[in-house]
């Protein structure tokens, strides 16, 4: 009888999973065409609130990493860390200037009450779409909040169909602020995505700062 019960439960679970998998529609219709960052993006998580100095150093490091890739004789970037532009995106302010948010398979969306909640799955992700400019470094300071289980996140450039430069980090209790810096050397669409495989999570906000060099 126990085996029969277990079998019935297994059928129920498999059936549900199969039903979901079979009905996920093809995403080609809404696929974006991102460009690659000019250098490997950098991730910063200090387990404390990020200071302006942390942000400046991260931006400087990202630009240095880009400069290191330039061929000998190329013009080196002139770093001017006075931020050109700083905006903050939230669930209810999902688009500003040249940046907007896109949600893939979120668990729950209530824009009127400022809430984006995601499942613990790589296919449930938040994506920032940036209309990037050449010779510009972008700094994304994310605040997220775990709902269940673990506290590990993955951030990468590109969308979930073609992730690049994945970085993982584990948040700390009560402070899940982290930063990601990306350099662009051409005009185009830059995508930055984040998901958690081990916790449902809420997106709180993302501060986006850009610096030209």
């Amino acid at each position, binding site marked *: 009888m126990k085996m*029969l019960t277990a*079998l*019935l439960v297994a*059928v*129920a*679970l498999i*059936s*549900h999973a199969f*039903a*979901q998998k*079979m*009905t*996920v*529609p093809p*995403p080609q219709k*809404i696929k974006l065409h991102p460009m690659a960052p000019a250098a490997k993006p950098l991730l910063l998580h200090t387990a404390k609130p990020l200071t302006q100095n942390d942000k400046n150093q991260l931006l400087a490091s990202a630009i240095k990493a880009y400069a290191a890739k330039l061929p000998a004789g190329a013009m080196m970037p002139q770093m001017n860390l006075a931020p050109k532009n700083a905006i903050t995106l939230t669930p209810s302010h*999902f*688009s500003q200037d040249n940046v*907007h*948010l*896109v*949600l*893939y*398979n*979120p*668990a*729950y*969306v*209530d*824009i*009127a*009450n400022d809430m984006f*909640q995601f*499942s613990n799955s790589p296919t449930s992700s938040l994506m920032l*779409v940036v209309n990037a400019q050449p010779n510009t470094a972008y700094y994304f300071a994310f605040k997220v909040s775990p709902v269940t289980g673990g506290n590990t996140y993955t951030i990468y450039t590109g969308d979930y169909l073609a992730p690049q430069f994945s970085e993982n980090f584990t948040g700390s209790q009560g402070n899940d602020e982290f930063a990601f810096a990306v350099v662009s050397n051409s005009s185009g669409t830059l995508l930055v995505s984040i998901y958690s495989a081990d916790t449902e999570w809420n997106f709180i906000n993302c501060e986006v700062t850009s610096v030209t060099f």
Partner: protein
Amino acid sequence: MKMLAALFVAVALISPAFAQKTNPQFTQAISKLHIVAPAAKPLLLYTGKHLTPDDKKQFLAAVIKTAPASARKHPASPEKASTITLSTSQFSQGNAYFVMNSPFFADIAHNNIYFAGGDAGAINFIIHAQPNTAYYLAITIHSDASNPQFTISTIDDNGKHINPENFTGSTGENEFAYGIVSNSAGDMAVTISSTNALWQFYSCVITSSTF
């Protein structure tokens, strides 16, 4: 053995159907509202064409007729009706807003909100209802699928779907209407999902008329 096989098939069929009706975040949100039941069974209108002003007028009258006779003190006056519009760029207005369970894709800045068929994807309209008021929701959605199946229902305070109504839409844009009568003050929730098709939400025009 045949009975056992039938039991497996039944469990397999019933399981996804149950799964569609649960979204913990939405259930939690619903539990914080003051959900009231409609005063009568809601009505659905789908003609396969865009709804005309005459369709809407007749439908509103039919909705009001569903109210208990004791509540109908005088006939509704169309000139007293007020209208609000929710859309991909207007998430709340007046006494109504919408929330989404597991949309497949949402690029809200570009008015693209898609729901997948067959999973828990649903859009939910929350209306802060007034007593002795009829609400008429004219909903426009789009699907590229052939014979998309849609379900619309109200929701109780446990997140359960009440009086679900099903209809088969057509490929392309679909406009349909759902009418509810309230005889008390509180929140009413209406949910829409599709069992088999990827679909896109466009707008929901909510007209209310006291009687």
